[in-house]
């Protein structure tokens, strides 16, 4: 018989969380993920009976922001319950063990839960020069990812580094940083981009994986429930955009009136994430609400897509310089061709031999 302590039901009991509160939690996660109330109830039913899931969390070239995001809520929230409930068998920052003991824990978890554990990755993987730029316990990130991914049931790539290569991949990408999906091709991979991702998005996806399996993903492997709409689609400043009312600086009248931040570089129109609906810090606010444009952190290469404070309609690499250089080069080429035209005309005139009547056999 399954030990109740191994089920979420046991954890709920231990924490003194009532069934009603738990149901409310599931409904709220469900509504964020656009599940129907019936599905949310099913999720609740299923969650209480799922077994403690083994999770191995690998951190590669990253800043620990993703871990901070998921663990640093002001008070222990119901959202973090799922995270507390999983059996986090390996995580550099959070585990007590270190050195050989830590690596042993990883190997043990891989062995005990072969084919069943979930692998969470944050950080990009450097592959240049045989991956020497980031190693853990003498093993390159590349080797460790391949080794752990081999027997994982599914992989969750958390944060823009693991999903798209992230800041380490920014031009000129000195370490040859790549994403998880650039390396692993034979496992289901769920991408949860963001720099960092929203905590409830991470826990919501985990809850979905534990109950219904892999959620529906978009073409970039992101769960549609959270990344289906753009920030702009759900932005409360959208009416100002539609009317063409834009703040011109961060402290002009438009900014104070809460007008659209497009001209100040907002990348909301091309950024898919749930910030505008779920928000941050327990639903307090999100960048645009605090008066700053969206940086587009949940989209690939956002760091190389031109200035953060330049409008989306501008070019990413100084077309002005190209225009000036091209004008000058065109002028030089035009003059050269004019000279050639002139000289071939002069040559033609010089070589011109008039035909006389005599030439034509007539009498002069």
């Amino acid at each position, binding site marked *: 018989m399954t030990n109740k302590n191994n089920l979420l039901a046991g954890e709920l009991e231990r924490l003194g969380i009532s069934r009603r509160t738990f149901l409310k939690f599931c409904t709220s996660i469900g509504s964020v993920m656009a599940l129907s109330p019936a599905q949310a109830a099913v999720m609740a039913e299923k969650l209480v009976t799922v077994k403690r899931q083994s999770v191995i969390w690998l951190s590669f070239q990253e800043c620990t922001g993703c871990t901070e995001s998921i663990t640093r809520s002001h008070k222990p929230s119901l959202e973090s319950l799922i995270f507390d409930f999983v059996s986090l068998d390996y995580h550099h920052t959070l585990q007590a063990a270190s050195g050989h003991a830590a690596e042993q824990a990883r190997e043990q978890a891989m062995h005990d839960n072969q084919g069943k554990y979930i692998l969470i990755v944050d950080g990009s993987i450097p592959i240049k020069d045989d991956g020497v730029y980031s190693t853990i316990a003498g093993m390159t990130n590349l080797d460790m990812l391949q080794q752990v991914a081999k027997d994982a049931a599914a992989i969750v790539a958390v944060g823009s580094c693991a999903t798209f290569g992230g800041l380490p991949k920014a031009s000129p990408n000195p370490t040859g940083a790549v994403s998880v999906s650039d390396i692993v091709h034979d496992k289901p991979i769920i991408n949860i981009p963001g720099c960092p991702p929203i905590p409830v998005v991470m826990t919501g996806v985990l809850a979905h994986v534990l109950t219904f399996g892999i959620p529906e993903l978009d073409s970039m492997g992101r769960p549609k429930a959270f990344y289906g709409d753009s920030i702009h689609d759900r932005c409360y400043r959208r009416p100002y955009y539609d009317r*063409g009312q834009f703040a011109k600086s961060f402290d002009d009248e438009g900014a104070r009136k809460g007008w659209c931040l497009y001209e100040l570089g907002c990348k909301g129109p091309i950024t898919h994430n749930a910030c505008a609906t779920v928000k941050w810090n327990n639903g307090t606010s999100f960048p645009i609400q605090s008066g700053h444009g969206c940086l587009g952190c949940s989209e690939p290469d956002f760091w190389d897509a031109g200035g953060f404070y330049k409008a*989306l309609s501008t*070019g990413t690499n*100084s*077309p002005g310089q*190209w225009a000036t250089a091209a*004008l000058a*080069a*065109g002028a030089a080429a035009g003059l050269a061709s004019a000279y050639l035209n002139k000289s071939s005309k002069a040559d033609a005139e010089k070589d011109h031999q008039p035909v006389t009547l005599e030439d034509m056999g007539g009498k002069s």
Partner: protein
Amino acid sequence: MNEIELLNWARGPGLAYATAIMFFGLSIRVIEILSLGRPEELAEVRDSGVRDGWLMILKRSLPEVRHWKYITASYIFHIGLLVVIFFFIPHTHLFRDVFGIFWGGWPNYIIDFFTVLSIAGMLYTLVARFYDPARRILSKMSDYLAWLVTFLPLVTGYMAFHRLGLDYTTMLAVHILSVELLMIAIPISKLTHVVTFTMARWYTGSNQGRRGVRS
């Protein structure tokens, strides 16, 4: 390549190459034309031709009663196109970025109105070109292509703004790419008239003036 990479390419290398090709091509063409000079006047020159040059620029820009429908449609689409290109707020930021000058834009509903007008005007000119026997005979493939590369940015821009068709990121990328196609076509097709129309008119007018024909 995903849609963001496509957009980043269009905003980055694509825009840079198209800008370079357009300015390079236009400056070669203008300088070459200027270097051709005038043929030697064999008769006595009667006038400097300056006045008639300017008059011709103006005159050829005025509407005519003849073919008034076609000319009106053509007017509408030219004016609409200019308004949309130079006064849609996101476009003004691009110009500020490239040329360093900013003239502010017009509200979206005005731009929207002119976009629809331009699209309608262009469609009319296409239909007229096709159904009028004389125009049809005179039209070559290159005329239809010139029409198409001008039409595409208008339609894709309209669709991107109204979130029609493909997802916004892809639509925006397609719009920018279609503009780049137009930029490349400008120096190598009859669309060079965006800069040479004044030169050509001035030349015709002043030539006539020098020979004593009033514009």
